[in-house]
């Protein structure tokens, strides 16, 4: 049962990854990418890492890919122009692909030479996923974890600094100012006598 589920899910992942590069329309590519992300979350559930699976869905599918889709959707894609550079980019692309393939092969060979150490248990001591993970993150690897957080913080601040621009002549709404405004600040009632004007 587990094996059937594994083969179904992994073939879906591989196929949708294939369609990511085969699809002509970039939006379709992103949609296939989302499908691949989501299905790999299913693979994580199969090995019992449901916490990681949910994080993958929340972070990658729910946030990152939405922004991908957001950007790609707004591009004005010209399919003819998209095809033109194909041959000139082919050597570089082929080289990259070969490098990746070689890396995968190296990893596969190295992994197969190591003897399988019994069954893989993602939940040692029957603790829940999140518990087991946090016990590692917040004790042994605390420094690395905090450093990763700092890196993310720096990246976030960098993004804000890059996009922040102060435009001097823009009138902005200030909710506090609006709600504290009283009638006497804005309106004055004047009793105009007939024939006199102000």
């Amino acid at each position, binding site marked *: 049962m*587990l094996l059937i589920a594994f083969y179904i899910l992994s073939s879906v992942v591989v196929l949708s990854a294939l369609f990511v590069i085969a699809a002509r329309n970039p939006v379709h590519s992103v949609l296939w990418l989302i499908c691949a992300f989501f299905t790999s979350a299913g693979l994580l559930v199969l090995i019992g890492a449901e916490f990681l699976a*949910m994080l993958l*869905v929340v972070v990658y599918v*729910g946030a990152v890919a939405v922004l991908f889709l957001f950007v790609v959707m707004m591009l004005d894609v010209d399919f003819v122009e998209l095809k033109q550079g194909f041959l000139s980019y082919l050597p570089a692309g082929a080289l990259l692909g070969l490098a990746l393939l070689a890396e995968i092969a190296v990893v596969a060979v190295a992994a197969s030479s190591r003897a399988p150490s019994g069954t893989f248990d993602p939940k040692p001591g029957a603790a829940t996923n999140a518990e087991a993970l946090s016990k590692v993150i917040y004790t042994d690897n605390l420094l690395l974890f905090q450093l990763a957080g700092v890196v993310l913080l720096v990246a976030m601040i960098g993004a804000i600094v890059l996009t922040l621009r102060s435009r001097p002549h823009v009138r902005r709404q200030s909710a506090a100012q609006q709600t504290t405004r009283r009638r006497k600040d804005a309106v004055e009632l004047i009793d105009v006598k007939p024939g006199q004007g102000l």
Partner: protein
Amino acid sequence: MERMFEWGGGVWGGVGLAALQVLAFMVVLLISLAFLLLMDRKVWAAVQLRKGPNVVGPFGLLQSFADFFKFVFKEIVIPAGANKTVFILAPILTLTLAFVGWAVVPVAPGWVIADLNVGVLYLFAISSLGVYGIIMGGWASNSKYPFLGALRSAAQMVSYEVSIGFVIITVLLLVGSMNLTDIVDSQAGGIWNWHAFLLRPDRILLFPVMFTMFVIFFISALAETNRPPFDLPEAESELVAGYQVEYSSTPYLLFMIGEYLNIVMMCAMLTILFFGGWHSPIPIPVGDMPDWLVSLGSFLMFAVKVIFFFFLFAMVKAIVPRYRYDQLMRLGWKIFLPTSLVAVILVSGYRVFTHQFGI
């Protein structure tokens, strides 16, 4: 592994049983949705001193079914410039995701299809996927208003998810588990244990924090489900009907059912996270009542709470004017996000402090 697929004995027998359960749950959900839809319209009408739908069936009770047949028998119009596959896929995706989320919602003790250990995260993940149906629908329509509506919706849902996430974290910190059944059971024993009204002596200091979180969650739920006053993706005065402009007939119906299922789901989440799930406000001595009676009573209690929240959603729709887009973003990022972030720090600080000193 075993804990994730506990339903049923043999492998294929288990699958069949689970399929039956899922089917029954879906049918119950859809039928109650039909009446909730009617309730929405009735409440709305009552606020505006109208009668609301009152022709089909007694008191208009069958109106939703009449609407259903009307939608289904209409012709499906797909715009010529539309991206056909994505156009059809979008409403189906919305509906599927709306149903999939319900798999982990416990409606009474033990009445749940999949009792996941990461139930809350699962719900959060599924609700964050809901935005895809809208974006895909808006883009595939190949038309200006739907596209603008989809963009608005994407930005809005992503923004409010952040504060919803932090609010959920405060509840998780108090409970110490991500299992929805555990969350409900930690609120057993009376209204003073509910996270919205945390008046238990040892946690009374957190009452203002958790009540604020409850309010923030409610308002964020309105924004997350594109309900008024945050229905900017379909603001009819600006965008005609937003991402739904080009949809008609059954695809539109699927969108609408998905949307309402999400709303009811948010009501259920409010009930589970803050209103004690199926536990009654004042503990009722069970005594030697049969199990099925207790379960049924619990289920009714849960349903009453969900309907109460749905009533609130309907009332908000009736009486609150629509927000402007920049105000919506300001509320999400500048008010809710900092507030919920501070709340996470306060609650975790309180937990560590009380743990340290054994209070």
